Every structure is written in C-alpha cells, then in structure tokens.
C-alpha cells in the first residue's frame, strides 16, 4: 500500500511540474463535483417599483446579495454591469433580447425584475430569461412578499438566486444555507450561526465555558457539539435545538466526549469518547444518544465523519502510529484503512457525493516544525490528492456546501483565526468573519 501511495505521489508530482498542472487539478475537481463550463449570466439591477423611502435601501441590499450569490455559485461567468444597455429593465416588456444577446453584453442568460415597499411589506418580482431563445425566453418568473426588513431583502435575494442556480446548475445551490461555527467574541467559545455569505451572525449557546465542534443535523433542526460542563468539569455531547432556540437534553457519558458527526439520514451520531478509560475511541449511538457502542480501540481516535452518500463508511483521525493520520473504516468498525501516509493529517470532511475527502494536512512535517497546514482534497477511490489552499498559515476544519461546489474552513492567514470560504477548485476565496476568533465551521445540509 505504501508503494502504491508513493506512485500516486510521484504521478501528482509530475502533474504539478507541468505548466498546466493547476488547470488539470481544477478539471479533476470539477469532474468530481459535476461542474460544467460556466454560463454567461447578466444580472441587471432591479427597478424600484415605487417611491417609498424604504424601497431604495432594500433594493440596494437585494441587488448586492443576488449578485454575490450568483457570482459565488461557481457555475456562472458574470457579465460586468458596465456592458449593460442604458436604463433599468423592471419587467419583461422592458427587455430587448438582441441587445442583451449581442456584444457588448453578449450574455446567454439575463435576470431582472423590480422591488417595492408598501404597507411595510417588500414585494419582489424577478425573472430569468434565456436570451438566446427568443421564441420562449422565460425560464423563471417569481414573486415574493415579506415584511420590509433588510434581513428579508437578503432572504428573498437568496431564494431567487437559489432558484436560478438550481435551474441552471442542476442541483440546489448554497445560497439559502447556513454555517455553524465557534466564536470567542463573548469571551467564551460558544456556538454561532451565520448565512453562508457571512451575513446575519448570531450567538446560539450561552454555556459560559467552552463549546467545540458544532455539527448541524441533516434536517437542520439541531446542532450537536462538545461542551464543557461545570463542577465537575467534563466534556459532553450537547444538543441545541434550532427549532426551539434552546438547549435540549442529551445523555451524558463518562470520560471526555468529543467531535459528534451525524449520519446523513439523521439516525446516528458517531463521536469520540474516553468513557472506557482507555484514551479516546470512536463510538456510535442513536441520534437520541442511546445505545452507544465502541467501534475502535486506538487510544487517540477522534473526528469521526460518516460518508453522507452511503453512511456505510466513517472517516476519522487517529494517532495510533504517532502523528495523527486519516483513516477510513466501515460503519461497524471493521476494515480500518489508513489513507494518509505522512505528516500531520486531521479534520476529514466528506464531499456530499461521498467521493472526495477534504482534510487539513501539514504534509511535510519535520522535527519541531509545525507551521503551515493546508486544506487538501483526496479522491477516496484513487487516493489522488489535490492541494486547495497554499501557504496561508494554518488552515483547518474544512466543511463542504451541500452542492459540493464550496468548502468553508478556518485559517489564521489574516493574523487571527477566521472563517473563509473557497470554491472547490480553489478560486473565489473570501473571508466570512472578522470579529473575535472564529473556528470550526460546519456547513448545513440544506
């Protein structure tokens, strides 16, 4: 097995030595996540439907959010607004298809619409047009009404963007998803949530001690995490209900209990526990916490994650041979295989299609040197590896978006630990948090 992996490294090295290595690597990731060639898309500013003083500010937020969602989707080539014809189209009657379909815009797709506030409600009408199909250009026509708040302006933009991404990209996008994470900004590590683009950051837990490793349930109703209890202190798996907005009870175990991981059907939780007083080992339990049973006896096994496609495999981290490495086993604990063979490898995260494993790796670890850790992606069948981040401090805790097109992770590249997101091909890197120290992001399943 060592030889085989070495051959792969050699292949990868040759690949990287070629001038087009970067492009090859990106193509490979795209294949893995079903990304086609980008579609040229123009997103006109929405027209103000009435002169209400709230209309202008909400329309600005709506336009920015919609543009960012589409730009970040990873499937569009956005046509710059400077190429658009004069005048803001607010309805289908305002659209001249040939003007949009020919240079300078030369776009394939166009989205446009209008937004207005009346009686404290914001109303949005939005369309998506296939510019190159004059016989039947309309792909989408949508209408939204909500209370007139900035949060709702963003929410409507996310919904409309996700309609467009779903229709043109084949699978629902990440625009309506959430990211759960740990923040120190209250003075303690607590669980927080935010929209996938970094907006709307909210504190969830109020332990006043330490909360770590938040993992949202596949149905989005609960967040499991590891929290430190007070007197006597112990690490326990804890459960926060997003539906109820408060903690709900969860069985306690002896020893330290860490790093919960959901099966994608929501029925099982894997976690690490020292309840058997033999170091930390991987356990599996019902999602109610009942029926915990031990799967490994590795003394320092942690960070179990189910393959979300099959729930038949669990990836985890173990220090059983020295520095931590990534292992994969069947969900009954059998067939344990080590999949990294050097350095310091932690924090495995399966892609939604169950084919790729993202993880954090200090690939070339030397005595006393533990500097840069980067995010890598492994094709689990071939064990081929592609590096996603480059020389940007310590990067850790990758988590995939539901469409497999984005990865969120923590990095200290800005000087403090913050949360960043990136497209799975390494482009569109952006910082999502700025206040306090923010770590261990976990992307919602929907």
């Amino acid at each position, binding site marked *: 097995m060592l030889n085989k992996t070495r051959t792969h490294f050699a292949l990868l090295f040759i690949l990287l030595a070629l001038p087009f290595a970067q492009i090859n690597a990106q193509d490979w990731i795209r294949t893995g996540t079903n990304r086609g060639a980008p579609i040229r898309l123009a997103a006109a500013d929405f027209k103000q439907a009435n002169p209400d003083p709230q209309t202008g500010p909400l329309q600005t937020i709506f336009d920015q959010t919609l543009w960012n969602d589409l730009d970040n989707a990873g499937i569009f080539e956005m046509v710059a607004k400077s190429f658009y014809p004069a005048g803001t189209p607010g309805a289908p009657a305002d659209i001249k298809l040939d003007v949009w379909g020919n240079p300078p815009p030369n776009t394939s797709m166009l989205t446009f619409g209008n937004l207005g506030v009346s009686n404290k409600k914001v109303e949005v009408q939005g369309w998506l047009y296939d510019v190159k199909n004059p016989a039947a250009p309309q792909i989408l026509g949508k209408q939204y009404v909500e209370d007139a708040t900035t949060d709702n302006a963003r929410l409507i933009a996310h919904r409309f963007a996700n309609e467009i991404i779903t229709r043109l990209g084949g699978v629902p996008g990440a625009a309506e998803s959430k990211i759960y994470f740990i923040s120190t900004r209250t003075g303690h*590590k607590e669980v927080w949530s935010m929209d996938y683009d970094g907006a709307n950051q909210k504190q969830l837990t109020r332990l006043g001690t*330490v909360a*770590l*490793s938040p993992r949202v349930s596949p149905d989005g109703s609960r967040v499991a995490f*590891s929290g*430190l209890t007070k007197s*006597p*202190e*112990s*690490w326990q798996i804890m459960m926060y209900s997003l539906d109820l907005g408060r903690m709900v009870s969860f069985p306690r175990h002896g*020893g*330290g209990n*860490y*790093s919960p991981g959901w099966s994608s059907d929501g029925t099982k939780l894997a976690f*690490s526990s*020292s309840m058997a*007083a*033999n*170091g*930390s080992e991987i356990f599996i339990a019902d999602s109610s916490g009942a029926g915990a049973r031990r799967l490994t006896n590795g*003394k*320092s*096994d*942690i*960070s179990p994650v189910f393959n979300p496609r099959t729930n038949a495999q669990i990836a985890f*981290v173990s*220090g059983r041979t*020295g*520095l*931590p490495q990534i292992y994969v086993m069947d969900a009954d604990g059998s067939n344990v295989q080590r999949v990294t063979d050097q350095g*310091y490898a*932690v*924090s495995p995260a399966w892609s939604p299609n169950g084919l790729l494993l993202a993880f*954090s790796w200090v690939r070339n670890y*030397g*005595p*006393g040197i*533990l500097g840069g*850790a980067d995010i890598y992606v492994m094709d689990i069948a071939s064990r081929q590896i592609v590096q996603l981040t480059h020389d940007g401090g310590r990067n*850790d*805790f990758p988590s995939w978006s539901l469409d497999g097109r984005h990865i969120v992770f923590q990095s200290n590249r800005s000087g403090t630990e913050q949360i960043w997101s990136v497209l799975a091909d390494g482009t569109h890197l952006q910082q999502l948090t700025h206040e306090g120290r923010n*770590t*261990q992001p976990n992307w919602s399943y929907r």
Partner: protein
Amino acid sequence: MNYRNKHWTLILGMMALLMMVSGCKKKPPPPPPPPPKPVTATLSANPSSIMAGQSSTLTWNTEGADDVALDGQKVNVSGSQSVTPAQTTTYHLSAKGAGGTQEATAQVTVMQPTPTPTPAPTPAPTPSDDQVFAQAAQDIYFDFDKADLRPQSQQILAHLAEVIKAHPNWKVQIEGNCDERGSTEYNLALGERRADAARQALVQGGVSADALKTISYGKEKPVCTEANEDCWQRNRHDHFTLMH
C-alpha cells in the same frame, strides 16, 4: 611524526564511522539532519535539610544546553550557589538547548527551631492539605505530540503517589494540556493520553483508581499564549488539582 600518526588514525576512524553510519541507513529518503544533542540537567542540594538560618549549597550540571535558568535567573551551564531559605523551598532548574528542554528540581527542607522558652508551647502549625498537595503535585511536562512520561515526571509521580496514599480522603483531578500548534480536536485526544499516562503511573504507585479523575483540556486552557518554544513547552503539561 607522532602527531601525523594520530592524524591518520583520526581520519581512518572517521571514515570507518561514516561507513558504519551509511551502512545502517539503507533506506532511500535523505538522512535527516543529526538530531540535536539531548539536554540533560541535574540539580542537588547539600545538605537537603537545614535548620532555619543555616545555608545549603545548590549544585547543578547540564549537558547540551545553552540557556540555563535557576528559578528564572539565568545561570552558568553548571555551577553551585549557596542559599539560605527561610522555609522549605523547591528550587527549579530549567535547561534549554537545541535538543529540547529539561527540568530538574531540588528541595531544601527547613526545620524551624523548636521555640525554647515560650511559655505556652503552640503546636507546630501543620500544613493544610492544599499546601501538602501543592508541594507534591508539580506539573509534569511532555515532548511535542507525545504522551510519554519523562524520567523526571516518573519521579514526581512516584512521590505524589505516596502523598496521595497518605490522604485516603483525597480526590485528585489530572488535567492533560497541549500547546497551541496542533488541531483543536486532535489535541483533546492527545490531552486524554497525557492525563491517562499520569493516572496509570499513580495507579502503579498504589493509588486507588477511584481517587483519580482525568480530564483533557486540549489547547483550550493555555497557561501562556506566546508563539515560542518556551510557552509551548509550558503548555504541554499535566496539571493536578485537589478536588474539594
């Protein structure tokens, strides 16, 4: 002529050594740089027990260290010093070098003179449990990503086991800690192993397992936050707490 012979012997010797070394390392990866010389440190007090007002001499020796401190004061790599502690004191030697950090301690027990003509002889104050515990339960330190007990730690734990056994009502929490460089979750597992290593040594020393509780703090409760080896070493430790 004599000198020349010596010279040749030296060269031949070195060549033989080189061949031996290269003969041992048959594996293809390039040889790692020679490991830095391991750091050793010893510290002793003579006499180790004095009456109040008397002096004791501390003598220390280190190898492979270039930064040696006695109770935080920079001192020569080896030497001696006279001390006159007013009460029982543990002196702490820290030796740092390319090969790591080594610690050594020596205790000078100070006996108070029995108050001779005092009218009402007050009983000698017995130290509280907390004081006895604090004296015996010194932090123990670990190498990077390791949970192996250093020889010094084994001595500390052997002594601590005796003290705990003498106090059957005690319950002791062993707290495993890591430096900031590893990953958050893996450090919790590593801290578990560090706490468990001390627990096992105490149980081997005869302490009842019921008297011990372990917890890992991973890298969540650092004693310092600087990004240098000194601070990292201080954070790679087990701390002991007497639970009330």
